[in-house]
Each structure stands twice: as C-alpha cells, then as structure tokens.
C-alpha cells in the first residue's frame, strides 16, 4: 500500500533504531579502535598515534596465551554445544507431535532466561570439590575421591558455557529442521535409501544453515565471556575478557584494553569469515 512514498516511509521508520545503533554502537566501536592507537599515563590520555599497544599485545606472552585460550575454549564450547544440541533439535522437530513442539521449545528456553550469574555460580556448586556431583558420585561409590579436574580450570568453563548457550544452538538448528519438507525424506526412502542414509544425504545437508548459525551464535559471544571464567575458571581458566576488564577498571590502561578488544574482535571476525567461507565452498562442492 502507499507505494508512492515507500522509500521515505521506510527510512523514517528505520531512522530511530538506525541512529541509535549508529550513536551507541558504531561511534563507540570506532572510539575503541581509535583508543587502541593511543596510550595512557595514569589518568591522562596521550593522543599521539602509536602501534606500541599492538606491539606489546603480540610480544607479551600472557596476552597471547589468554587470546589462544579464549579461542580454544570458545571452540570447545561451540563444538560441545552444537553436537549436544543437534539431537535435541532433531528430536523436537521430527519426533515430537506438532502440538507439543512449542512446549518443548518453551522448556528448553526457560533455563536460559533465569539469572545467568546465579546459574554460573550454581555450576560452581555442582562441580566443586565438595560439590553436588562429587558428593553424589562418592555416595554412589562410583569414585573413591572427589574429582578435581572439573572445577577451576578450562573444563569447568566449557561445561558451564555449553549449558549457558544451549538454547542459542538448539533454536537455529530446530528452525532449519522445521523448514525441511517432509516429503523430501519420503522421496529419499522411496528412492531406496534407508533411514540413516536419508539422514546423511537429505536431512543433514538441509540442516547445515541452522548448524552454521548455531556455531556462529555460540562461538562469537563465548570468546568474550567474562563471568564464567571468573567464577569457575580458576587462574588457568581465565579468558581475554577478564584481561580487558582488568585493563579498563583496575590498571587504568584503557588503550591496552581497547587494543585487546580490537584484537579479540579481529580474531572473531576472521575465524567466522573463514568458517563461513569453508562452509560455502563445501556446499558449492556438493552441488556440482
């Protein structure tokens, strides 16, 4: 309707959210970028452009170690989350009666909306030396002494984050599975494939967009997570976000914090693009 002034109306409508994002996202991101080329001496900012922050970031082993660990932990979390989530999404999409699907999705999303902080803390309670898991396993006689490899290290971070990001992985995969025309599966069966091969040759390739979305939506925020490494990670489970926070709020070195933030964003962007690119190529390779 009213096609005459469609462009004007569209632009008028999009203007408030777009301006908001411009002022509160684009400008700050640019500011961070600018800060990374400045330096700070106690409380005064020196605006002379310099690459010293980047030099330091790449030469100081602690930063490199934190960055690498963040990438590895985020990768492990992503892998665990997506692999664990796929069967759930598949189950809800293919084996739950249509009328009960939204109930299942509802059940899956509820934990996600409950206090993140408290949830992470409770994982500490579950995984701790005298925690729920250890005391239960001891009580059952499965183990003789408490497991120590599950708290205050990277494992604990992976478990906790895999829990926190579960719905983020399940929902996109579920949506892509829901979009699959069920007659395609019947066609595959009709053409002689068994259930497993139908899954591999029809369902899985068609679910790839959902898996890609799930991977990115878990990987990107995970790399910058602050709470979980701080609460359950111990000294060897800390990640880059903890260092960024320290630089900003404790060391009063905003330029260094900004540099680390820029590097982290750069790494995330590059890895995501590589992932998308490889995935495209793989899909294209299949089509020809």
């Amino acid at each position, binding site marked *: *309707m*009213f096609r005459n002034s*469609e*462009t004007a*109306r*569209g632009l008028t*409508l*999009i*203007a*408030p*959210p*777009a301006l*908001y*994002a411009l002022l*509160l996202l684009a400008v*700050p*991101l640019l*500011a*961070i970028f600018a*800060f990374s080329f400045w330096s700070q001496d106690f409380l005064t900012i020196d605006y002379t452009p310099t690459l010293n922050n980047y030099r330091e970031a790449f030469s100081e082993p602690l930063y490199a170690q934190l960055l690498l660990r963040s990438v590895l932990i985020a990768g492990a979390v992503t892998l665990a989350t997506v692999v*664990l989530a796929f*069967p*759930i999404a598949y*189950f*809800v999409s293919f*084996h739950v009666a*249509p009328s009960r699907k*939204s109930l299942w999705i*509802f*059940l899956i999303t*509820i934990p996600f*909306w*409950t206090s993140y*902080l*408290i*949830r992470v803390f*409770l*994982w500490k*309670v579950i995984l*701790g030396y005298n925690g729920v898991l250890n*005391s239960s396993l001891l009580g059952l006689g499965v183990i003789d002494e408490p497991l120590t490899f599950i708290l205050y290290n990277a494992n604990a971070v992976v478990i906790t984050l895999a*829990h926190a990001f*579960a719905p983020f992985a399940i*929902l996109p995969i*579920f949506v892509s599975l*829901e979009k699959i025309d069920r007659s395609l599966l019947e066609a595959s069966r009709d053409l002689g494939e068994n259930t497993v091969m139908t899954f591999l040759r029809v369902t899985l390739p068609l679910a790839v967009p959902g898996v890609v979305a799930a991977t990115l*939506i878990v990987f*990107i925020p995970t*790399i*910058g*997570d*602050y709470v979980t490494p701080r609460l359950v990670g111990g000294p060897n489970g800390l990640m880059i*976000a903890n260092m960024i*926070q320290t630089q*900003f*709020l404790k060391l009063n070195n*905003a330029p260094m914090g*900004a540099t680390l*933030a820029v590097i*982290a964003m750069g790494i995330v962007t590059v890895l995501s693009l590589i992932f998308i690119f490889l995935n495209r190529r793989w899909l294209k390779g299949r089509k020809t």
Partner: protein
Amino acid sequence: MTWLRGYAVLYLVFLYAPIVLLPIFAFNDSTIIAFPLSGFTTQWFTEIPNTPALVKSVQTSLIIAVTTALLSTTLGICAARAGAKYSFPGKAPMLGFIMLPLVLPEIIVAVSLLVVLLALGLPLGGWTVILGHTLICTPFCIAILNSAFGNLDASLEEAAFDLGETRWSTFRLITLPLVMPGIISALLISFTISLDEFIIAFFLTGTEPTLPVYLWGQLRFPQKIPVVMALGTILVALSVILLTIAEIARRRGIARAGGKDTGGFL
C-alpha cells in the same frame, strides 16, 4: 526412537540441574552450599527485605529494566515494521547493523560504550546502563516482532484503508491489535534480559549497582550466599511466570490470526 527421547530427557536434566538446586539451597538451614542438607528454613527469604542495599539494587534494576523494555520495544517496532513493509536503499545493511549486538560479545559493547562516555566526561549511572541495555535488547525485540509483522497480511491494512480509515487509524485498529501479542512478548523478554544482564551493568553502572552487580559483589562472601539463593529462587519463579505469560500471549496471537503454531520464541 526411544534412545533419542532418553537423550532428550537427560539433556533437560542437564539444562535444569542448576535451577533445581536453587530452591533446595534457598531453604537449606546452612551457609555452606553443599550436600548433605542440614534443615529447612525460610530465614534467607525473610532476610531479603531487611537488606537495604539489596532492596535498593532491586529497585534500580526494575527501573532500568522497565525503561529498557519500553525503549527497545519501541525501537524494535520501528525496525521490524520498516523491515516487513517497506523497501528502501540500504535496508539490509542497516537492519544487519542494528542486529549486530546479538552476536557481539557483551564485553565489547560494554567497554566501547564506557570509553565514549568517559571521553565525553558524562557521569555513569542508571541511564548509561539503560543505553547499553537498550542496544542489546533491541535485536531480540526485532527478532520477535519480525515474525509478528511478517505474518501480517498486507491486504488487511489495505482493506482498512480502502474502507475509509486513515493511515494512523488503520495502524491503531488493525495493525496494533494483530501484533500486540508480539509486542507483549518483546516487552517481557527485553525486561527479562535487562533485569539479568551483568557485564554492561558492571561497566556502566554508577554509584547505585543493579541487582546482578550487587549479587556479584555478594558472591565473594560465603555467609551471604544463601540469601542470594533465596533471591535467585524468587527471580526464577518470576521469570517463569513472565515467560509463561509471554508464551500464552504469543499463542493467543497466533490463534487470533487463525494461523498455525510453529513453536518457539525467536
């Protein structure tokens, strides 16, 4: 497919494990958060209203969450409406950029806003948290409202206009009632996100901490933890109630539009 169902049930246990523990420790008569339990008490719940700092932080958080919900839903309505109905140059990049906070690590949003606010010499406070929260909540609102506006048959609005209504009364009489369930769930979900958000609040809050920031400080003191558990229990109960209302609103919206339920919030 019994093994798949079994797996699904196990997965739900994994998902709910921490939440199930919450009320258990909230009613446990001990400051040590571990099994075995020592006894039943409601002491921790009664302590909540007697902790002024906690009450204050709840008030701060509520004000921030309500304002954030209103702002981000309003912005979300604009963006979702523009996206569903109009075509204009630069539409896809603009919408993509607005949705960016959905995939941006929150710490990045937090520090970049902090840098700008400090550079401008602006004081931190509740309003700076609102700015940050609105930024990250708007994409969620858009995601919810997109389906509400997308499901709206364009000819319904044309019909109302054709029958003599103005553009504005068409929006009020037809569009708004039909997308209202989406608006309600967008309000509730952005409210919930804001209430729970920690990192941005941690960086941008002034002298008055929000509830999560307050809780973060309490987690260091073991004797304060049971009260946190009690509060957590209340919050979970509240979230579940709000989410149930949101879900019912969403389903009613679908039923009202005569559509089929395809499930899911997002």
